Structures are given as structure tokens and as C-alpha cells.
């Protein structure tokens, strides 16, 4: 019977086939993601390089901080990897479709475990490795580390990834033994949400900006010391940090390196034993149907009943809300987004612009436009994830709408209005609140509030229209739709649109501000040009909105292929 790497062959073959038979837009998408990844890696490398160089100037203190910093970076990734292992294992060991094929085959449980665990480790840890690699290379380059450092880094990262993922997989095995796998997924989604939100809030409230203040430098050691605890030396993150720090100095720390490898091996063996004992029961449970959630929503029907909507719109709205509420992955991501928005707003609250009194007024108003641009980008992210997939989300059930006596125009417009209301409320609230916290000029407050309303119409229209034009009815989830060719095209157009609107509004607004600060009246020509710019922004927004929706309706009407 086949050895475990054989079970990974379909992934290799499928990747090869994907490359050979790439679809339209795949290259553009790959290029765009590669450029983004490269930019992020370059930023991480530069940051790590710069920081290490700065620390090198503090002699022993610098070494101490670098040593603690390394183990702190690993500690952050340790918790991330453990959680990622829990979530990934749920999919790879219990919910993945190909398990139905593999479990009925005469494949030894041990081999199946090895193949799935290898897949879990790689899926759960690739992102951590992608982030850690440029950081470690940056540290190594700044300290002119020997080649052995980079070899040690690879030998450290492998067991460092295996240990938390093995523990996470063990937690999943235990969870699935208690709850059916599909229920466990819901619980994990919520845990993930709380984990991510708390991490973001923690980082924000730690106020890392204090670190860059020169006057607070003596407190740095205290700051790092608070991140240490008595159990830290027992964690793999500490061992990884120590191993790498020793290697950075041209020494070798066999003790901590050995601790990493033996623990990785030990956890894997223990996990394999647990898997042999409990896996099949958990997998069998995972086949059971999940219970419906939010089945009693009479209040929703009553609320929608009083809205000024046609019967069709009412039914589509109720259906979309119920589907949304019953899909934990949807609303948990929305809640996570709200947490990020809160942190974003908090940033504006803590901005201490009054430290530079002569410039504060100008900077505040510049920030108002930064805020508007940020709100536009938040809007693009929200719409690509929640509005763009609206048509694709009908999936294989789209035949119901297509075969019913429902004009596709009404269907698409209904999707538009359903998307518009939350997006408008979110971004309008964000803009008004941030401008209020900043204390910007009242004129700007009005301009920004009006602009964001027009931008909401344009962006939701663009997302709905392009979503109808490039549907992915066969996609497994909304994230896959958002990452499709159409989704990437939408993001590019949306970012260009935001930049154009900001440019059209910023110039006349800055002109107004400049004249007001100097108490100079605006000439008629200047007033005409300002009005022309504002009108152009309105025209671009309305045209984007209207033309996108029209193209979307036409695309739906011409849809001559059956949904996959």
C-alpha cells in the first residue's frame, strides 16, 4: 500500500495542471499578489534591518533587547501557529471532501495521518514562515551573520512550526470527539474572531508608538521585561530565539536546538497515537448533518414587512439575511472588521497633534483626507468581500431565480440596495466619527460626509455590477469569489476610483483652506474651478454606479451558461 507522500500527489498534480491551464486573469492576479507580497517582505526586511542596526549601537543593552525581541517575535507566531493548526486540522482531517475518497481506500490510518499532518503543518505555517523569513534575513544582514545562521534559521523554523501545529491538531481531535466537526467549526470561527480581535486590541493598547519616542528609551527594558514571564523559558519560542541568537553570534546552542527537535518529534508521536485511537470516531461524527441556527426569526420577517419594498425585494432581503446569519464565517469576518475599525478610530483619538500648534490645523485637515481615502479603501475591502460575491453566492441555486418570473434587473437592484445600506452606514459613521475626533474644519466635515455617500453608491454599484459580470457560481465560499479575476479587477478599479475622487476633492478643498487661513477671498475663476472639480467627482461617482449596474444587468440577461 502507498507510502504517505503518495497521498499528497493530487495536490502536486492539481497545482501543475493549474499552471498549465491558467485561466484569464490568472497572470494579472498572480503578479498583483506577488508584488504585494514582495512589498510586505521588503518592508519587514527593512524594518528588521533598521531596528537591528539601531540596537547594535547600544552595546550589551542592544544584544539583550535583540535576544528578547527574537523570542518575543517567536512567541507571537507560536500562538498564531497553534490557533492556525486548530482551524486547519479541522478542515484537513475532518471536513475536506477528498477524505471520502481516501477513507474508503485501503490506506493505513498511520499513513493517512502522516499525509494529513504534513498538509496541516504546511497550510498552517506557510504564512508565518513568509513573515518570519524576511525578518530573520534582515536581522542576519544587519549583524553580518555567518552562513550558519541562515541554515540554523531553517533548522529552527521547521520544528518551531511543527510543535504548535501538532498541539493545535490535538485540540481539534479532542474538540471533534466532543462536538460534531461542523459544530466545532462554528466554535472555532468564533474563537478565531475573539483571538484576532483581542490580538489587534492588545497591540493597539500597548501603544507601540511609545517605543519610537526618544524620551521614553530608558523605559524600553521595562517594556520588554513586562513581556517576559516565568514560563517563557519553557516555551518553544524561547528555545527558537535562543538558538538563533547564539547562531547570530557565531556560537551554537545545541541544548535549545535539541529541545525544539525532540519536542517536535515527541508531540508528533503522541498526536499520532491519539489519532489512531480517536480519529475514525471523529471523522464518522463529521459526516453527520449540522443543526440549523437562527431558525426562529419572526422578528426579522416583521421588520422587513414594514419596509417600503416590493414583495420580491422583501423575499430576497429575508433570504439573504438568513443565509448570512447562518454562515458563521460571514458574520465573524464582519465582526473582526468592526474590531479593526474601532482600533482605527482609536488611533485618531490618540493622535496628539496639538504638540505642533502652528501646523496642527493644516495637519488635521490633511488627516481628514487621509481618513477619507482610508474609508474608501475600507469600503473597497468590505464590498469586495461582502457585496461582490452577492450574485455568485446564489451558487447552484441561481436556477431558482432564473427560472422564476423575476426580472433580473429587479434581482440585481435588490442585491445593490441590500449591500448599500450597511456599507453606507459603516463608512459614513467611520468618516463622521473620525473627523469629529480630529476636530477638522466644518467645511471639510460636510465635504467628506457628502463624498463618502457618493462613494458608497459608486463602490457598491461597481461591486454588484462586476460581481454579476464575473460570477463564480461554483466557488466554495465568498473569499474564493473575492479572490477571483473579477474580484481583483474590482479592487484595481475601486482603488483607482478612490484615488481619482480624493484628487478631485482634495485640490479645491485645500484651495479653500489656504485662502481661509490667510483670510483671502476666492476669485470667481477659483470658485468656478472648485465647483467644476466637485461636480466632476459627483459625475464620476454617478457614472461608475449607473454604468456598472447597467452592465451587470445586461451580463445577467446574457448569461447563457448554466451555473456550475
Amino acid at each position, binding site marked *: *500500500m*502507498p507510502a504517505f507522500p*503518495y497521498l499528497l*500527489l*493530487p495536490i502536486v*498534480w*492539481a497545482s501543475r*495542471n*493549474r499552471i498549465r*491551464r491558467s485561466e484569464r486573469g490568472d497572470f494579472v492576479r498572480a503578479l498583483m499578489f506577488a508584488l504585494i507580497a514582495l512589498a510586505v517582505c521588503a518592508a519587514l526586511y527593512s524594518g528588521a534591518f533598521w531596528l537591528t542596526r539601531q540596537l547594535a549601537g547600544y552595546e550589551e543593552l542592544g544584544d539583550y533587547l535583540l535576544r528578547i525581541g527574537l523570542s518575543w517575535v517567536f512567541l507571537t507566531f507560536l500562538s498564531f501557529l497553534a490557533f492556525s493548526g486548530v482551524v486547519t486540522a479541522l478542515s484537513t482531517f475532518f471536513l475536506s*471532501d*477528498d477524505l*471520502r*475518497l*481516501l*477513507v*474508503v*481506500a*485501503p*490506506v*493505513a*490510518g498511520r499513513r493517512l495521518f502522516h499525509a494529513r499532518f504534513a498538509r496541516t503543518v504546511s497550510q498552517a505555517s506557510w504564512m508565518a514562515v513568509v513573515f518570519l523569513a524576511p525578518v530573520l534575513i534582515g536581522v542576519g544582514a544587519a549583524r553580518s551573520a555567518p552562513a550558519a545562521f541562515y541554515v540554523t534559521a531553517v533548522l529552527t523554523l521547521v520544528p518551531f512550526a511543527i510543535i504548535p501545529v501538532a498541539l493545535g491538531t490535538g485540540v481539534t481531535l479532542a474538540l471533534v470527539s466532543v462536538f460534531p466537526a461542523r459544530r466545532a467549526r462554528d466554535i472555532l470561527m468564533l474563537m478565531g474572531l475573539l483571538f484576532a480581535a483581542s490580538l489587534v486590541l492588545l497591540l493597539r493598547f500597548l501603544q507601540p508608538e511609545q517605543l519610537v519616542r526618544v524620551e521614553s528609551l530608558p523605559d524600553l527594558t521595562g517594556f520588554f521585561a513586562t513581556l517576559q514571564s516565568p514560563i517563557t523559558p519553557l516555551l518553544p519560542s524561547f528555545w527558537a530565539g535562543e538558538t538563533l541568537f547564539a547562531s547570530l553570534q557565531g556560537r551554537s546552542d545545541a541544548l535549545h536546538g535539541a529541545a525544539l527537535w525532540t519536542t517536535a518529534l515527541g508531540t508528533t508521536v503522541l498526536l499520532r497515537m491519539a489519532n489512531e485511537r480517536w480519529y*475514525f*470516531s471523529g471523522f*464518522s461524527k463529521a*459526516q*453527520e*448533518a449540522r443543526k440549523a441556527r437562527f431558525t426562529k426569526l419572526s422578528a426579522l420577517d416583521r421588520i422587513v414587512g414594514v419596509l417600503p419594498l416590493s414583495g420580491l425585494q422583501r423575499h430576497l432581503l429575508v433570504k439573504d439575511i438568513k443565509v448570512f446569519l447562518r454562515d458563521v464565517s460571514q458574520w465573524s469576518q464582519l465582526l473582526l472588521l468592526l474590531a479593526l475599525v474601532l482600533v482605527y478610530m482609536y488611533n485618531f483619538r490618540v493622535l496628539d497633534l496639538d504638540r505642533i500648534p502652528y501646523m496642527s490645523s493644516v495637519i488635521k485637515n490633511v488627516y481628514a483626507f487621509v481618513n477619507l481615502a482610508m474609508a474608501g479603501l475600507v469600503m473597497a475591502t468590505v464590498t469586495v468581500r461582502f457585496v461582490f460575491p452577492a450574485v455568485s453566492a446564489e451558487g447552484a441555486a441561481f436556477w431558482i431565480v432564473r427560472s422564476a418570473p423575476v426580472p433580473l434587473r429587479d434581482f440585481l437592484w435588490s442585491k445593490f440596495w441590500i449591500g448599500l445600506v450597511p456599507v453606507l452606514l459603516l463608512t459614513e459613521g467611520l468618516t463622521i466619527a473620525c473627523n469629529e475626533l480630529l476636530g477638522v474644519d466644518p467645511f471639510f466635515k460636510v465635504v467628506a460626509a457628502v463624498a463618502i455617500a457618493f462613494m458608497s453608491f459608486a463602490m457598491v454599484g461597481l461591486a454588484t455590477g462586476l460581481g454579476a459580470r464575473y460570477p463564480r457560481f461554483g466557488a466554495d465560499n465568498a473569499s474564493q469569489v473575492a479572490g477571483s479575476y473579477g474580484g481583483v479587477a474590482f479592487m484595481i478599479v475601486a482603488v483607482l476610483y478612490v484615488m481619482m475622487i480624493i484628487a478631485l476633492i482634495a485640490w479645491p478643498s485645500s484651495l479653500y483652506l489656504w485662502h481661509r487661513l490667510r483670510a483671502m477671498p476666492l476669485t470667481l475663476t477659483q470658485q468656478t474651478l472648485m465647483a467644476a472639480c466637485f461636480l466632476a467627482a459627483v459625475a464620476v461617482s454617478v457614472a461608475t454606479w449607473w454604468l456598472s449596474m447597467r452592465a451587470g444587468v445586461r451580463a445577467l440577461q446574457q448569461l447563457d451558461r448554466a451555473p456550475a
Partner: protein
Amino acid sequence: MLETHNIVKTFGGFTAVNDVSLAVPAGEIHGFLGPNGAGKTTMIRMIAGLLKPTSGQIIVNGHDMAVDPETAKASLGFIPDRPFIYEKLTAGEFLRFHAGLYGLDGNGVGTRIEEMLALFELTRWEHELVESFSHGMKQRLVMSAAFLHRPQAILVDEPMVGLDPRGARLIKEVFRRMSARGAAILMSTHTLEVAQEMCDRISIIVRGQIIARGTVDELRGLAGGQDEQLTPVFLKLTGGTGLQEIDDGTV
């Protein structure tokens, strides 16, 4: 060849399969009939090793599925009602992978794959991605995979779903040939004509329990009628059609 002893499967408080015992000897085509939700698929998935029975024993080719699952599964071919196939693999790649799972290797594998593709009329699609296949083609590909390793027992869940008449005739032919060569076939189906035409014996399952078993003639006798077709016999044994509700205007 295929035996189950007192199989019980419960989901929470719901009993899907209740004390079902079956025996399908080599060379027999055994039909598994029952209304929707009767427990046919649950039973077949337990025999295939996808679901764990709450209690009872499953024996395939003399091997206990709970004690020696690998050897038991090596003798089985399973054709599910909703098969999984890697969408980004070609038909040929999928069969090659499947062959490896069942321990087939060496020079003979390529020839065997070609035989199967030819038998199920998929030769010209060998190098096409599965994602471009129709439902019927996917069904035929899964059948090719199930027969690839020359199993001694075959489990089929709703074999005719999505097949055109030509495909359906082909499948019937293949099943007959396999049974003539000594394979035991357990087939769940809703299509009574298929059961009547192909099965040597039939078990009727209702609410998780076998309520009748025998040849078509024996079942006819149990239902106490002289009907030529199996449909009225099935309806009498399983408790009517429910059509009177539509006629009465209650639906």
C-alpha cells in the same frame, strides 16, 4: 462475501439503522430498496468504512471492518451517490492515483486504466480536467475507479442517477458481467425497474429496519398480490403513495 450482523446506527436520539443483518454471497446482486430517508445510504456508508456503526459487525471477504479495515477495504469497490473527484486532475491522473491507493503498480496499471476508460467510453477524455465533465461522465469515471482494482465486493449507492439510457445500459451490463465473475454487489436504488431487472434478491428497508427480503417472486408473495411489476409490491410493503393527499386537495 459481504455480511453485516445486527448493525445499529444512531445520530443523537435518532436511530437511522436498527438491527440490520445482511448477507450477500459471491456472484449475487442484492438490491437495497426503501423510501427516502429509510437508512439505505447510511447502511452503505457504514459498510464502505465511512461511518462508524453504533453497534454490530461488518465482514467483507472474511475480514472484520472494525478490526482489519485495510484488508477489508482492499476487497471493496465503492460507488457513492455523490462522488468526490479531484476537479483539477485529468481522468487519467485520477485513475492512476486511485490505482496507487489500492496498491496497483507496475506496467499493468496503464493497460488496466486504458481498459477501464474504454469500457466506460471515456478514452477521448483521458487528458481532460474532471471539472469539465458532466455529471454522467463523472459517474462513469467513478465507476471506472471502483472496478479498477478488480474488487470482490461492490457497493453502489443509486447507480443510475444522472446517467443517460446508453450509460445506464452499459452499467447494467458491467454489473452483470462482474457478478458472473463472482463479485458480490450490494446496490441501493430507487429505480424499481432496475432492481427488478438486475437483482437476484432484494431487501426492503423502512425506518432503519429490514421489513422484507427475498427474490422478486417471494416479495410479490409477501405483499399478497399478483402484480407483474415491482412498484405496486413495493408500495404495499412500504405503506402507500401519499398521492391521495394531492387528489384530496390537501396538498
